[in-house]
């Protein structure tokens, strides 16, 4: 896709001394022009095209950048130092992508702003597409992106920045959830960007771990909602709908990452996802190994609240429901989804009335509509069973 070149082209302009915010606008204009000429799929079609197309995009974007500067201020133009460098090699391309990604994911930005800016500057999406994905008006999204650009324009970026911050933003982008309406698929965009990142930092096992984590979850997407659009929990999913090719790819990436012996939280989370994906039925889930990985994950990320709750569930499967409940009691009862975990373990213990009560309480506290419906139905199912003699 033509827009996958956005970050690289922007990197060239920034390296030539162009101001980040103005260069980003120029690249966006050049992308629009390229799509108008050749359509959006041009890179996929022809092996020879990418180099030509990138050069074409750089030329057009640079011209647009200069035009804009000229229009803005003739004096400002003279201050731009144009370095006439030879065409960039693969190493510089990798640096460019990382440079732009780390700028877009700068810790000074809020996650929502970083996600929006990354989707535009590296993902090559238009403001209108990003606005639709987040269900906000285009004018609001335009402001959010331009404020984000202003924020990071003042930051220094001589060296490629922090990969950790980029990983975090891509993780949050992926975790935003699947879009139900037409338009941009954020999870697919996050995977595309994670692939780009993993390619430019091949020695970072956490970048590979994040990509693996995304693929291992994305593979279940067709089973995650039923025909009526309701959420189906992992243990009730139709596993024949899982994308086995994507699982195999994720497992392969994860194994290569783990072989480097530099464990991190994304690799640990990916390992847990891989173990779930590996079970042909929910009953065949390898809970002892999953529990080990949760223990590992909590060493790597001690503040991970979701992992703490999930660990208690894993304890419940390995050592029995009451052991799981004891693990849960050690945690803060005010945690989001605490009641949902308690309800699950109470049902596992056969305490159906208490489980129903907890599921109802969990539904009250749910932040997502689909989760709320699912939890209410769990409570209703148990109450129905209890009422039947």
């Amino acid at each position, binding site marked *: 896709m033509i827009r996958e070149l956005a970050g690289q082209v922007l990197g060239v302009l920034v390296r030539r001394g162009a101001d980040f915010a103005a260069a980003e606008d120029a690249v966006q204009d050049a992308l629009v022009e390229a799509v108008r000429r050749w359509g959006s799929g041009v890179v996929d079609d022809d092996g020879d095209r990418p180099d030509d197309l990138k050069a074409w995009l750089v030329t057009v974007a640079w011209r647009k950048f200069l035009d804009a500067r000229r229009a803005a201020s003739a004096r400002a133009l003279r201050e731009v130092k144009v370095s006439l460098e030879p065409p960039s090699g693969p190493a510089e391309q990798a640096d460019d992508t990382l440079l732009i990604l780390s700028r877009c994911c700068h810790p000074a930005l809020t996650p929502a702003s970083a996600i929006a800016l990354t989707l535009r500057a590296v993902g090559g999406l238009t403001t209108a597409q990003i606005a639709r994905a987040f*269900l906000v008006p285009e004018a*609001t999204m335009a402001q*959010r992106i331009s*404020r984000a650009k202003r924020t990071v324009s003042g930051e220094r970026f001589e060296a490629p920045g922090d990969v950790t911050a980029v990983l975090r933003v891509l*993780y949050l982008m992926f975790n*935003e959830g699947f879009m139900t309406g037409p338009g941009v698929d954020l999870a697919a965009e996050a995977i595309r960007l994670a692939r780009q990142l993993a390619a430019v930092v091949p020695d970072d096992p956490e970048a590979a771990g994040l990509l693996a*984590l995304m693929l291992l979850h994305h593979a279940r997407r067709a089973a995650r909602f039923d025909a009526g659009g309701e959420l189906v929990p992992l243990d009730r999913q139709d596993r024949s709908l899982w994308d086995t090719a994507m699982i195999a790819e994720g497992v392969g990436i994860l194994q290569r990452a783990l072989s480097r012996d530099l464990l991190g939280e994304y690799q640990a*989370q990916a390992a847990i996802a891989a173990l779930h994906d590996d079970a042909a039925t929910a009953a065949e889930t390898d809970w002892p190994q999953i529990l080990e990985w949760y223990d590992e994950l909590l060493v790597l990320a001690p503040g991970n609240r979701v992992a703490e709750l999930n660990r208690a569930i894993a304890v419940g499967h390995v050592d029995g429901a009451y052991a799981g409940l004891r693990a849960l009691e050690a945690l803060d009862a005010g945690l989001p989804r605490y009641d949902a975990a308690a309800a699950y373990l109470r049902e596992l213990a056969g305490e159906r009335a208490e489980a129903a009560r907890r599921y109802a309480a969990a539904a009250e506290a749910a*932040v997502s*509509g689909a989760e709320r419906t699912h939890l209410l139905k769990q409570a209703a199912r148990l109450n129905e069973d209890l009422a039947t003699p």
Partner: protein
Amino acid sequence: MKYLLLKHYRGGPEGQDYGTAPMEEWTPEEISAHIAFMRKVADDLRERGEYVDGQALSPEGTFVRYGGEGRPPVTDGPFAETKDLIAGWMVVDVDSEERAHEAAAYLSSAPGKGGKPLYEWIEVRPFLTEPSVVE
């Protein structure tokens, strides 16, 4: 995170002289200042990249319900309590609940009679979201 900011006809804190006078008792300039302020709130939120939607509602409304198979809808009204009426809403997309509260407080500072802030109660309700992918 999206939040609905609901404006009722509830007025400000009880027992105090805030925003209790109906709008027809304000001066025309005070009404204009109030409307201009609401527009400015929307503009400021748009400028921050947080504005999603906003709408003022007519106070004239009716309760309507299903009347049963083959029967016309049943209507009821006018509403009993003015303070329960919804005057309008604004939807914001913000980074935290704290920001939603700030935006609501800003809205609540709209000028009323005498150009003084109304201190009006604004109801803040979070939207239910999409479920997160990684559970």
